[in-house]
Structure formats: C-alpha cells, structure tokens
C-alpha cells in the first residue's frame, strides 16, 4: 500500500489566491446514513516527549478499497485568515485492542514530537479517498504521560499538544510552540499581592531577571510594572504587589530572564489540561492602596489563566 509508510508532510499556509480560508464547522453534521451511529472516533495516546498517536477504528466497509487513508490536521484560521494542514498516513495496527464495536480495522497515525505545529487549535479529520475529509470524534485520550511533564533539555524548541473534545463533541488538538518557555508553578495569593514560582526552560536566568506585568492593550512598555525575581537554577520566585496594578484592568505576566534579553510569556502548558481557565482559579483579593493615594475606586485583583493558558491578573471594581 503506497503512501502508508510515508513521512508526515506539513503543507505550507494555503495560498490565499487559490484557497479560501477554511472555516471551522459550526455544528457536527450528522450524516443521515448514520443517524444513530457515532461517526468514526480516534483514541489519542501521548508519549513522554510530546508525540501523539491517533488510533482510528474503521468498519470493514469504510476501509475497503482505501489505498492511502490519512489523518488531516487543519489549524483553525488565525486573524489573518491563514490556515495550514498536516497530513499523516494512517496504517493498519497489527496488535490492536480487541474491537468492542464488533469487527473493523484499527488504523494508526503518529504525530512525532519533531513535527512543528503552529500555536493554535487544530481540527482533526479522517481523509479517505474519494470523500470529503470527515471530522473525527474523540475516543479515549490517554494523556497520563503529559501530567506533570518536564521537557527534555538540550532542545531548541518546545512543542506541546493536548488533544481534547470540543464543546460540539469533535476532536481537536491544542498546540503550543514556545522556546524559551516560562512555566508557571505554584501561585500563592498573599497579603496585597501574589507570589509566583516557576521554571524557565531554554534560557538562563541571570542578573537583572525580573517578572513584568504589562497592561494589556496599553501599547508599548509604558505602564509596565516589574519586580526582581529570586533565582535558584532554572526556578524563579517573584512577589508581585497588587497596588501598582490598580491603574489598569488586565495585566499579562512576562519573565525577563536577564537584563537586555527578550521577555518570555509566563504560561502553564506542561500538563494534560487543555483549558486551565476554569480549573486553575485563584481567590480575588482586595487591593489595599497606601494611605494618601488618590481617592480610587475600590477594586480586587485576581490571577487567572487566559484562553491560551497564559498567566494574567484581572482587576475588577468592587461591586457595591
């Protein structure tokens, strides 16, 4: 069977003149032929290095006559409307688990950790010959090797991919590609501030290392608040006081590893949880301003993770 053992091919962003941006489908289309049957599903297993395998179970009928079935990953278009695709060959698995769903064929595609994936959300399709690519549904995701992950050192980039079920019940993969990367660890809310522990990968912490809070959408470096960090090897600890944050509503946290070096976004991506926002939450705390400050509106500060799992702080007026 030709094509099945080929290497993954990453296609470049689709040329806008010939290809309109792909729009993610709103609702899973239910084909009338399978009104009460689920569409094909993929079981995903993550390995320790960040690679993924996809096991797709096909009925004998669906698999019949397929010379080079493939798995298609298509990134949801970004703001510019650009998208890109990765196509992986699907090959039969010999030692597949006994099929619960009766007979059929298990096909496997591997997404090695060495394939680069642009940061974003990638929809996963089954591409059979003579058919439109069909969105896959999530099966069993075994992501235990991603829990408490420590990336291998000596690499030049860090790829994170977490498969997940969308709210419409489809399979997508959340991808990050960062290097250097500042991983947020424990975060304690203290009196009038927060204490953040984290670990920097891919750069050295040195003199002048600092944590920066940048007002979102403020433009430029104006208004940035920064604090010194304590360094212990790759680990850093910083205490960020809340009072200077009262001036803006949203703050993004960055780590500058050393004086004169580019800052790195602080994020939490080294585990199995695609969306941190609702799971990693922290208590809101009243910002106590020093006596003599201008009569400000009373407000609270709450650390949180953005939809991209970046660490931020939100300032809210206290509702009366």
């Amino acid at each position, binding site marked *: 069977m030709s094509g099945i053992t080929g290497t993954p091919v990453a296609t470049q962003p689709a040329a806008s003149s010939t290809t309109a941006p792909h729009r993610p489908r709103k609702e899973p289309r239910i084909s009338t032929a399978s009104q009460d049957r689920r569409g094909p599903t993929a079981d995903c297993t993550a390995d320790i290095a960040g690679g993924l395998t996809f096991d797709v179970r096909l009925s004998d009928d669906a698999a019949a006559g397929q010379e080079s079935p493939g798995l298609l990953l298509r990134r949801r278009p970004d703001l510019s409307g650009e998208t890109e695709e990765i196509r992986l060959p699907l090959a039969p698995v010999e030692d597949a688990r006994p099929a619960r769903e009766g007979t059929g064929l298990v096909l496997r595609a591997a997404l090695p950790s060495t394939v680069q994936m642009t940061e974003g959300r990638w929809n996963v399709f089954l591409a059979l010959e003579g058919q439109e690519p069909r969105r896959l549904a999530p099966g069993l995701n075994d992501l*235990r090797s991603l829990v408490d992950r420590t990336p291998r050192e000596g690499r030049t980039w860090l790829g994170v991919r977490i498969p997940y079920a969308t709210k419409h019940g489809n399979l997508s993969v959340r991808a990050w590609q960062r290097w250097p990367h500042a991983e947020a660890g424990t975060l304690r809310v203290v009196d009038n501030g927060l204490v953040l522990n984290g670990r920097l990968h891919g750069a050295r912490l040195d003199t002048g290392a600092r944590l920066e809070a940048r007002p979102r959408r403020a433009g430029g470096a104006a208004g940035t608040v920064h604090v010194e960090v304590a360094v212990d090897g790759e680990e850093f600890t910083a205490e960020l006081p809340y009072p200077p944050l009262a001036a803006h509503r949203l703050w993004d946290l960055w780590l500058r590893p050393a004086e004169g070096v580019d800052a790195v976004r602080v994020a939490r991506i080294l585990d*199995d949880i695609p969306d941190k926002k609702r799971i990693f939450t922290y208590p809101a705390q009243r910002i106590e301003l020093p006596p003599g400050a201008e009569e400000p509106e009373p407000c609270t500060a709450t650390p949180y993770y953005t939809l991209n799992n970046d660490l931020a702080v939100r300032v809210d007026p206290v509702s009366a």
Partner: protein
Amino acid sequence: MHISFLLHNGYAIGGTVRTTYNLARCLAEQHDVEVVSVFRTRERPVFDPGPGVRLRHLVDTRGMRAPTDIAPEHALPAQVFPRADGKYPMYSELTDRLIGEHLATTDADVVIGTRPGLNIHLARQTRRGPARLGQEHLTLATHSRRLKLVLRAAYPKLDALTTVTEADARDYRRLFRLPGVHVESVPNSVPEPDVSPSDGTSKWVVAAGRLAPAKRYDLLIRAFSQVVAERPDWRLRIYGGGREHDKLRALIDERKLYNHVFLMGPTHPIEPEWAKGSIGAVTSSLESFGMTIVEAMRCGLPVVATDCPHGPAEIIRSGVDGTLVPTGNENAVASALLTLINDDELRRRMGRAALADAARFDPAHVGARYESLMQELTGRTGRGLHRTRGSLLSGAYAVKDALRNTAHGALQSGRTA
C-alpha cells in the same frame, strides 16, 4: 431470550444508564436485547448501548419547552407512575399510557425495570407472560416512607427484585413480605477499562462523581489539607459537576488549597483520568453501590472509602485492596491517605490487589448471574399461581397500609430504616 429494559432516560449521563448498558451489551451477546427509554433528550446517547442492543424511546423531548408542546396529555399528572418517586414531575398521563401500551403488548420474555417508579409500571401494567424483574439501584433505607408504602404494595407482583448490595437485599427480605418474589443482590458491573492500569507512581489522588452533598467532597477537601501539610508534593483532582461546585470552590480557596486541589468538571470517559492517579478517594455519606470505587479499582487504584451504607464494605477488603474508614471522619480519611502516600510499596501492592479483586465485577460475571436468574424465572412452572397469590397479597397490603396511613400515620420510618 428476548429481554427488554425499561429505562428513565437512556440519553442522559448517569450511573443507572451506564450500568444498564454494561449489562445489556453483555446479554446481547447471547440474547435479543432492547432498551426502552421513556424519554429521549438528545440526538445520540452519551454512553454507547453496545452492539446488538436496540435503543428506542417513548417520548421525545428534544427541543420541547412546555409539556403541551409534546402532547396535551403530557401536561396531566401521572396516575401510574408514583408521586413518591423523585422523577414524578417528568411523568404524565402520556407516559402512563405509552409505558402501559408497551408493557401490555411486549413480546419480551423478561421485562426489567430500572427504578422504583418504573418497577411499579412493570408490576401493574405488564401483560401476563413475561417475567417481571425489578432492579433497585438505590436502597430501601433511603427511600421516603411514602415510596416504601407504594413499593410494599406493588412489589409482590414482581417475579424478582434485584438489589446492588446484599445489605439492601436483606432489608427487602426483612421488611417487605414478598412471597414468591425472588430477591437477590447482583452488583453493578464495570467493564475492564480500555486504558492500561495506573502504575502507582504519580502523586495524585483522584475522586469522581456528582458534586452533590451526599458525596461529602467537603470532607475530602478538609482531609486533604492535612495531607498537604505533611506531603505538599501530592495533589487531588475531583472530577464531576454539580450544585456543590461553588461551595467546594470557596472551601478550597479558604483553606488555600488552590495549588493542590482541583475541580476538574464533568469528564467523559473517566477511565483515563483514574489511570492518571495513584489513589482513589470516596468519602460519601451514602453509596447505594459505589460504582466509582469499582471503576478506580479496575484502573489499578487502591481506594480509601468511607464505610457508609451500603456499598463500600461489599466491594473493598480493607487493608488488602483498599481502606475503609469511619463515615464522616476527616482525620481517618487523612490518615488512611497518608498511609498509602508514605508507603510506595504498600500502595502498589494494594493497587495490584484492587485490580485483581475488581475483576469479579466484570460484565461477564454479572451478566451470567442475571442470565441464570432470568432462565430460572422464565423456566419456572406454576408462575400463574404465584402471580395470582402475589396480586391478592399485594391488594391486601395496599388496603392495610392505606388504613394504617389514615388511622395511625402508617409504617414508621424507624421500622424500615
């Protein structure tokens, strides 16, 4: 055999749906199996009923706002489905009629009810012929007095009643007069998970279930703050959604456990999540069976569970494949967790024992017990006699209970608790 299950809503997420499908799937390997779902709320069922299992519904509520959108009859209160069953508000004259028509015309050899209200339908509306098997997924002790009265009157008309624990079966035998009714405990089944078991090396404790008061996750979180004080490298994930969410969130924040305790939200399938942990925790005040205990054990986790009525003690061999601790005792939960956390060898040994011991809940075993029970029921001679006797008796009880009810305030809950 043709076997027909009657289920409240086969399109929802829930323990009864899951365990019904596990059993149906297994029985379907040898028999003709259908599941009749009274309601249909989704396009597709969340859990897969399994190959060969026919799923159909009686009332389709998708996209309906008011009962009258479905049928005027659906706005009228149910007469057959008992008021004392918690799902009563969803039932109506329409469901009375449709369930009745189904049971009066079914060509099944065995009909199986899966909750008290549906067992009443079975007892009252099944045509002569099919064996009537009522399943009790909750417990007699936790039923309201009103429900007990209704069941006491109707259950003599069943051929068999299955409970999920021996303790509950004993209650039925002791507190109800059920002549000719075969009362037997058959545990819920849990299939072998499709993920490999936990290797016991991760530093995570896992709990899963609805965030409901009876699950006592508040107790688990308090106990876990003692764990964190000694072993800050261990953390806790609680999977599930429910109305206690905000309270539990507030407790986590108040105890400053937000780096150690995580509310993960509803998750399906759950097996890969168990496999990420090394210890399971169940701290409920009530577990009619304790499905999550078995699920965790089947993923190789030793479970620390409260010895609450009725399930846990019939699942866990304390000190061998898990630990039972007194119900409601925070210190005991914390110390049992720490014992397993601080002894890697003990934890892994108990995890292996849990994996082996939980195999007895495999659908193949549980299905075989149901199969022999059903064969006995359908092969029984003189069933007509039992039927008549049961009906007469139950009629007599109904009258007696009704009299007591008006005269003395009826069956004392103390007698049946």
